[in-house]
């Protein structure tokens, strides 16, 4: 169980995928509460942000009102209008010229009696300002205007210490305003008065009852999480602003979230599976190759192994193994060469370069079999240099060695390629020759004897002539190879003895008459 690394790798991949899927599934299942909680937190944060923005807007409008209040020309004109009785148009022209750029919905100048001195059509605004001034010192408040709820800022104007009246400017809280502020969140804004929605960025909620409980309200079957946005000068009779987000929208977010989780799970699992398969494949292929190669090596083979691009550890290992095999092959070849050299030296006579007696024993069974198979006559020519001891005694052993080497050369030149020449020891040589007739050996022997006799060697300007006696034995086919060799050597030896006894430098073929003669014992050769 999991004993191989491939199995472990596969197991780890499956384990990882399972872990990923489990984690994402857990996140998916338990994220609903977390998301709802986060949505509530975001709602509070958005409410705070909106509160800050609206506060800034209130202060901005008040700042504009104060800017108008502090303008000396406005003060002078106001004086002329209210105290001298000059026409209001002059004040209107001045206001338009110097403050026409202000982003205000409506404006009105009130005299000290609270009567509108400009824009009498804005008498409602003048009344609202007057009413508010009676109740509060706050220069900012909200009032219902003809086009909707308005933010009102007012400031008292005086000139050289003489109170002149009041300037009031407004900013409309319409649908455009709502949409501007709604941009800060994905929820909705509700302007509520007396528990009824007056204006909303969700038009279908307008005119509906608005009675939130525990910061939530159900409208049109939808649950909204709501937060109050405090407005300046707020009281029970003034409108209230609420920011709300429907739980369905939150759950829609959750659904989007879950879809993302699911997509991630599928994509992640597939990616891991593919990655695992790729890794397993990349791991498997070189591993199998290595295993086959090692199996072959254990069987004694040293197979060739291709090189891979070294992109990973396995490929590097394969390449190192390939190099190791190459190195082993080279060593093996070296050993083979040395072995061949050793074998050759074991069966070769170092002085003459001819085969030695050891090789005779190796090759004879093969030749014997060949002769029997092809019904050829296998002759054994036993040669012995005549008077070789005298040469040694007269010229020394070095010259003797030269004579033996010369003899070897004569034999090589005289014999056919199919003949086998052996140095049996001392000045004694053996030739195994396959021929069609028994006379083949005789002819070869005569040729050798003749060649040697005619080719003396030169030593210190003196010619040293050599002759050889040759005895020829023939194999007997009824014997096995070993016995045949013993017999052949015996017969050739007998014939050589006879040649020596007959005066040397001659060839004698073994016959039965020679069977009882003594072996060659002439130490003088």
């Amino acid at each position, binding site marked *: 169980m999991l004993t191989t690394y491939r199995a472990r790798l596969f197991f780890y991949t499956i384990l990882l995928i399972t872990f990923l899927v489990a984690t994402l599934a857990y996140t998916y299942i338990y994220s609903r509460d977390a998301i709802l909680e986060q949505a509530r937190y975001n709602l509070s944060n958005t409410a705070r942000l909106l509160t800050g923005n609206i506060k800034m807007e209130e202060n901005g409008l008040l700042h504009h009102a104060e800017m108008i209040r502090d303008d000396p020309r406005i003060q002078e004109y106001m004086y002329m209008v209210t105290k001298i009785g000059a*026409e209001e148009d*002059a004040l209107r022209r*001045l206001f338009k010229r110097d403050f026409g750029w202000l982003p205000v919905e409506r404006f009105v100048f009130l005299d000290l009696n609270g009567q509108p001195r400009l824009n009498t059509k804005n008498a409602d605004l003048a009344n609202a300002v007057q009413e508010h001034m009676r109740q509060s010192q706050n220069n900012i408040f909200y009032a219902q205007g003809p086009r909707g709820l308005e933010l009102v800022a007012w400031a008292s104007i005086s000139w050289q210490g003489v109170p002149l009246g009041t300037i009031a400017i407004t900013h409309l809280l319409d649908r455009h305003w709502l949409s501007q502020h709604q941009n800060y969140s994905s929820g909705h804004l509700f302007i509520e008065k007396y528990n009824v929605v007056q204006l909303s960025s969700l038009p279908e909620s307008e005119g509906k009852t608005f009675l939130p409980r525990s910061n939530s309200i159900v409208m049109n079957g939808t649950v909204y999480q709501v937060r109050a946005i405090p407005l300046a000068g707020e009281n029970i009779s003034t409108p209230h602003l609420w920011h709300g987000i429907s739980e369905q929208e939150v759950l829609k977010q959750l659904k989007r979230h879950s879809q993302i989780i699911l997509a991630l799970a599928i994509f992640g699992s597939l990616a891991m599976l593919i990655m695992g398969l790729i890794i397993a494949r990349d791991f498997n292929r070189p591993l199998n190759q290595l295993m086959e190669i090692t199996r072959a090596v254990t069987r004694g083979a040293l197979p060739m192994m291709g090189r891979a691009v070294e992109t990973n550890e396995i490929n590097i290992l394969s390449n190192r193994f390939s190099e190791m095999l190459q190195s082993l092959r080279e060593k093996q070849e070296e050993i083979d060469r040395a072995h061949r050299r050793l074998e050759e030296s074991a069966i070769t006579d170092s002085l003459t370069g001819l085969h030695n007696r050891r090789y005779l024993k190796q090759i004879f069974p093969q030749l014997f079999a060949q002769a029997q198979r092809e019904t050829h006559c296998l002759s054994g020519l036993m040669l012995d240099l005549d008077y070789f001891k005298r040469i040694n005694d007269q010229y020394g052993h070095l010259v003797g060695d030269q004579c033996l080497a010369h003899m070897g050369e004569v034999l090589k030149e005289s014999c056919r390629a199919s003949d086998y020449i052996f140095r049996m020891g001392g000045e004694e040589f053996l030739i195994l020759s396959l021929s069609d007739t028994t006379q083949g050996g005789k002819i070869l022997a005569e040729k050798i004897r003749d060649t040697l006799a005619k080719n003396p060697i030169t030593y210190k300007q003196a010619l040293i002539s050599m002759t050889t006696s040759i005895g020829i034995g023939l194999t007997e086919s009824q014997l096995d190879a070993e016995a045949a060799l013993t017999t052949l050597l015996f017969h050739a030896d007998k014939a050589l003895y006879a040649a020596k006894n007959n005066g040397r430098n001659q060839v004698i073929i073994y016959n039965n008459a020679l069977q009882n003669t003594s072996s060659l014992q002439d130490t003088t050769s």
Partner: protein
Amino acid sequence: MNTGPRITGIYLCVFITFFPWPAFSTDTADHSATDHENDNALMGVGAHFAWILFDAIKADLETKVGRRVILFGENSMLGVGCNAGIKATRQATQSRETFGFICCSLSDEEIEKEQLIVYPLVKEPILILTHKDNPVDNLSSDQVRAIFRGDLASWADVDETDKPIVVVTRLHCKKRPGHWKTILPDHKEFRQERLNVTSAAAMVQRVGDFRGAIGHTGATWIFDAKDPIKIIMVDGSRPTAENLRNGKYPFYRQLSAITNRNPSPDVVKLINEAQTGEAFRKIARQYELLPLNPMRPATPANAVTR
């Protein structure tokens, strides 16, 4: 290590860097030429209304005097006015030839204190302005004074129009005689409930804003055709040079040039040209100004040194 060549190289670099090479710098040469031209210029500083006259004949003056003339005073609101003219005059030196121009007469004490010479140029009518929709085209000088005093507070007092009068004033140079003082000699006499402005442009704007407004400004002010104002007659007389000469138009001020007690000959020549030259007469006619000097006398005429 041989440091000789290195030290020689350093000395050479320092020499090349700090050697004065002005002859090869065209920028420096141009700059010097401009500086020289400015240094050699005659400089006039002062009130807007007088600046208009000098600026109009500037080319003629430069030709006549043979010097460049630089004038400051287009924007009196930006700190250039009578006081700046007096200050520039006081700071005149041999190498800095300056003169001033003022829109109001100076007292003898101020002339003495500032060590000035005053060169009267022209009398400029003070225009009485009303809104163009105002049906009144003529007021007596007493009515004008009464209105500015606040004795008359409604146009109903001089016409049938029942509209409150909005007085607009520009009471600068309060300590100097002349100027708006032909209307009322003391600023304290003016109606307290009034709009006081700091420039002629603001004056025109204020009068244009109120249909019941009345204001004043010098004749050299260049009006825009779109300004909703009009110039009314006083005592049945239009604000012309002729009516100033024969005394029919009562409101005026005197525009003058000023120098220190040792003016350079070129400055004197320039002012003399302004006082008596043909070009100046032409511009005076354009604005209905009454020149205070005869044509081209040999020396600056009517110089007041005390």
